């Protein structure tokens, strides 16, 4: 067909066509070149889906290079979205629908598309040159290699150009809107509301109304293409999910984390000071917080990672809530200052959005890389609390909780997010801001010497929390000096006395060990499972999804998710010892399992993978099954997941 056949109508009016087929859940993956706007396309589809009321989970996956060489495999960028009419916890293992904007995107992703899957291909990019570039000897659209899929070849660039003919845009500019054509087509297929996308485009291109209109035209053209061509026989409908009552929005982990920091400023009544140095995948927290100065948030882009945390610590000394945000390599640079914060016993929130390591590693990919670095990566005995959120929305609560612990116990706290949480999104039940628990910074205002003199002892501890007083400069009569040298217990002056050092090392450890954290909870629906799966951080989703699958097959399995990594919940050891098998899946080579084995002397088993991508539910399902019948993971009873339990 030619472009002239397309009726660029208003897609908000449902068109004629076959009645939609109902689906419980769908996984769509948009894949293209880094410059094709796949992240934006995925983000918009997510937003439409959230507005529609589905539960959803997303997985953006992109290279570290801003623009890798066009059309190459390393340059492929993708965005996967899982949406459903029930609550889901992962972005999905395999796509039901793959949108491939070029041959490289096809080659890099086709292996994940199950037989019978829907494949929508932008044929304009399938030139001999582009095919040769990535090693296709024959055109896969013609050689029969794709015949197990439902293939829809669509000349998206040509169609987009045709739709934009009247706008006077150059050929190149017009073709750049082809991602919106793809979005329009998918929006039609899945009956997504489109008003939000059109509004978004008008705002994004507010300064270039011509581009806004062009993108909207391309979006409508894609929609109309689906409606008017007979190439797509069916559309699909995924009904809204039945979520807990409340007000929802879509949110990414980094945004939720930034909001949590803003909220922590409100709950503690402290001005927030962020000292940070740009690093993937944490920079968006700096970007977001820099917009919220009206909440008393000051952001400081430092000359390096060390300066970022140094300035945050200086602000904490002055009575602010000091915060620094980074990723693994940045934590390595900040280690010495974290140690200083440990011994100064000042509140400080340290956010590590983990990525693949070691060294520069995989900047845009996820990994549970830094638990042991957070736990031990400092000279001397330098314990500190560690908290890890389990989902994008949970980043908010984790930040608020980390700040509460930091202020209450006068300690640096490390919050371990990761790349999957940072960029992934989900519907978030918006918390009631007025219900957030307030925290009293309880600044010292009076001398506190035990002998009743007018002296101030900066290391005289609270009997309950072991926290020391926080006396900020400007408080008359409490002038004092603190530093990295060992301090005399109570009085705080420099002390090299042997017994004092032994006592201070133990006191600091005791303070952190005594932080009150909620008991761990086991999810064991049958109540008599033999196998307990323990997770932390972003593996929550795949672990829960896999557990649902195996339970759906009639097996029993218990799960436990750790939010507090230091100190561990007080009941953890007892729980671990009460199961025949403890299994710890991690996206590293077994960091949590090492801590659990050392601490509790349980023979916990480890399952690990470090591919830069989250676990797939199917993969963990197979691992669980291997342990459920007591045999090696490679053997044991298998079954397929019944419809409806996929999470």
């Amino acid at each position, binding site marked *: 067909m030619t472009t002239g056949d397309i009726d660029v109508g208003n897609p908000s009016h449902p068109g004629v066509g076959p009645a939609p087929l109902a689906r419980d859940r769908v996984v769509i993956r948009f894949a293209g070149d880094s410059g094709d706007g796949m992240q934006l396309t995925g983000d918009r589809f997510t937003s439409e889906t*959230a*507005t529609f*009321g589905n539960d959803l989970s997303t997985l953006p996956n992109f290279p570290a290079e801003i623009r890798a060489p066009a059309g190459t495999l390393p340059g492929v960028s993708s965005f996967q979205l899982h949406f459903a009419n029930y609550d889901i916890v992962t972005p999905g293992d395999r796509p039901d629908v793959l949108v491939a904007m070029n041959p490289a995107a096809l080659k890099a992703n086709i292996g994940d598309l199950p037989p019978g899957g829907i494949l929508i291909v932008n044929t304009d990019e399938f030139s001999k040159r582009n095919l040769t570039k990535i090693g296709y000897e024959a055109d896969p659209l013609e050689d029969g290699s794709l015949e197990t899929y439902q293939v829809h070849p669509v000349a998206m660039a040509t169609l987009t150009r045709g739709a934009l003919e009247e706008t006077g845009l150059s050929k190149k500019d017009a073709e750049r809107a082809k991602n919106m054509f793809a979005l329009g087509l998918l929006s039609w297929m899945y009956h997504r509301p489109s008003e*939000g996308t059109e509004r978004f485009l008008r705002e994004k291109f507010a300064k270039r109304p011509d581009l806004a209109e062009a993108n909207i035209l391309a979006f409508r053209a894609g929609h109309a293409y689906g409606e008017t061509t007979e190439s797509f026989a069916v559309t699909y409908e995924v009904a809204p999910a039945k*979520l807990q*009552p*409340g*007000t*929802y*929005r*879509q949110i990414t982990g980094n945004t939720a984390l930034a909001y949590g920091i*803003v*909220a922590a400023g*409100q709950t503690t009544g402290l001005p927030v*000071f962020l000292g940070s140095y740009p690093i993937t995948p944490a920079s968006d927290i700096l970007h977001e917080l820099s917009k*919220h*100065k*009206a*909440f*008393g948030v*000051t952001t*400081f882009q*430092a*000359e390096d990672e*060390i*300066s*970022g*945390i*140094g*300035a945050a*610590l*200086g*602000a*904490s*000394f*002055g*009575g*602010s809530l000091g915060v620094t945000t980074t990723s693994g390599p940045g934590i390595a640079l900040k280690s*010495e*200052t974290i140690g200083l914060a440990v011994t*100064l016993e000042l509140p400080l929130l340290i956010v590590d959005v983990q990525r693949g390591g070691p060294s520069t590693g995989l900047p845009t990919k996820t990994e549970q890389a830094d638990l042991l670095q957070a736990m031990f990566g400092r000279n001397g005995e330098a314990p500190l609390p560690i908290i890890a959120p389990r989902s994008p929305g949970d980043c*908010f609560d984790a930040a608020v909780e980390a700040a509460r612990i930091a202020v209450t116990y006068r300690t640096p706290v490390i919050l371990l997010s990761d790349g999957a949480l940072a960029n992934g999104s989900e519907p978030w039940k*918006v*918390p*009631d*801001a*007025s219900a957030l628990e307030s925290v009293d910074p309880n600044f010292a205002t009076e001398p506190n010497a035990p002998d009743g003199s007018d002296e101030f002892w900066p290391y005289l501890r609270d009997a309950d929390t072991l926290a020391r007083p926080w006396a900020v*400069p*400007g*408080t*008359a*009569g409490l*002038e*004092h*000096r*603190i*530093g*990295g040298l060992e301090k005399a217990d109570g009085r705080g*002056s*420099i002390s090299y006395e042997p017994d004092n050092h032994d006592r201070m090392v133990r006191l600091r450890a005791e303070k952190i060990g005594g932080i009150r954290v909620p008991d761990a909870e086991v999810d064991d629906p049958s109540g008599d499972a033999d196998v307990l799966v323990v997770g932390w951080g972003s593996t929550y989703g795949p672990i829960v999804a896999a557990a649902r699958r195996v339970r759906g097959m009639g097996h029993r399995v218990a799960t436990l998710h750790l939010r507090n990594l230091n100190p561990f919940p007080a009941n953890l050891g007892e729980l671990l010892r009460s199961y025949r098998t403890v299994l710890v899946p991690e996206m590293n080579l077994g960091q949590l399992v090492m801590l659990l084995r050392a601490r509790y002397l349980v023979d916990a088993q480890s399952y690990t993978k470090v591919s830069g991508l989250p676990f797939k539910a199917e993969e963990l399902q197979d691992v669980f099954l291997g342990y459920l019948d007591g045999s090696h993971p490679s053997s044991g009873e298998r079954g397929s997941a019944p419809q409806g339990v996929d999470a």
Partner: protein
Amino acid sequence: MTDQQTSPALGALVDLGLPGIGGLDGVPLAETPQSAKDFTSDQEVRWCPGCGDYAVLAAVRSFLPTLGIKRENTVFVSGIGCSSRFPYYLNTYGMHSIHGRAPTIATGLAITRPDLSVWVVTGDGDALSIGGNHLIHALRRNVNLKILLFNNRIYGLTKGQYSPTSEQGKVTKSTPMGSIDHPFNPVSMALGAEATFVGRAIDSDRKNLTAVLGAAAAHRGTALVEILQDCPIFNDGSFDVLRKDGKENRIVPLTHGEPIRFGPAGEDGLGSHAVVADGLALKVVDAASVDPERIVVHDAGSHELAFALSRLSDQDLTHTVTGIFRDTSRATYDDAARAQVDQAKAGGAPDLQSLLNGRDTWTVAG
């Protein structure tokens, strides 16, 4: 240098007519006069006998009360090294931090607390070697900090290795065949980093040291004061030529607005040596031999002149310029950062719930 009333000690200083606010504006004043004793902590001073740090400590203890600000609103932050023990000996707020990082900590403190007078104490190794990056960025940002750089041209606390200001060829524990490192010129470096205030003093010259410290305190922005001092244990006598007979032929004191003359008094009662232009650089000549019009008049507002003065001679102490090289006004980072927050707040108190809700919410009914 406005608002002299905040700082009685500063009245005698030259008024450059600089616009803006002073370095101590916003810091509350003490209600009663304070003395050096008030600024002395109960800690025993533990520097080696003969260490130049004693002289600086004594000068600072006497100088601080003259600022007239509240003691509790004064903070000293240091790094690591002998001089970095300084905060322990002052009865103010203080932090003895980690090697090279004091400017970063002081930056966060100064941005968030405009009511504090924030001082950094550092040494040549701390500031120029491990902390070099933080120093140059503090200077270019012009955060309202006063940095005292104690330069003894040696690592003392680690027992005698060469430092980034040690002269080439210096034999130390780590350079038995002589140092092959080219040294920094701290004043040139600070000026190159866009510092708005750079001064230099010799530890034993209390009058000049106090004057430079006073001007630094009054300066709104980052002030770097290089203090030349001896390490009697590992670099004894390194500045002796600036203390002994003939020193007047080497030390070139600067006074804003005055011709640069030094040395034994000539027939006109002024120094017998003079600084004149020599192409794009400066040189020292016999004052009597040149037209007085050719003698350079010091202008602390000139970046170019300040730099040329920092290069007057090699760092062999043939000529050592002291006083205030540069004192100019430029918006400070901390004032600007606070202004942005204030501007954002001017629209009224924001609502956290609105922020959390964002623009696209949907409701799931119970």
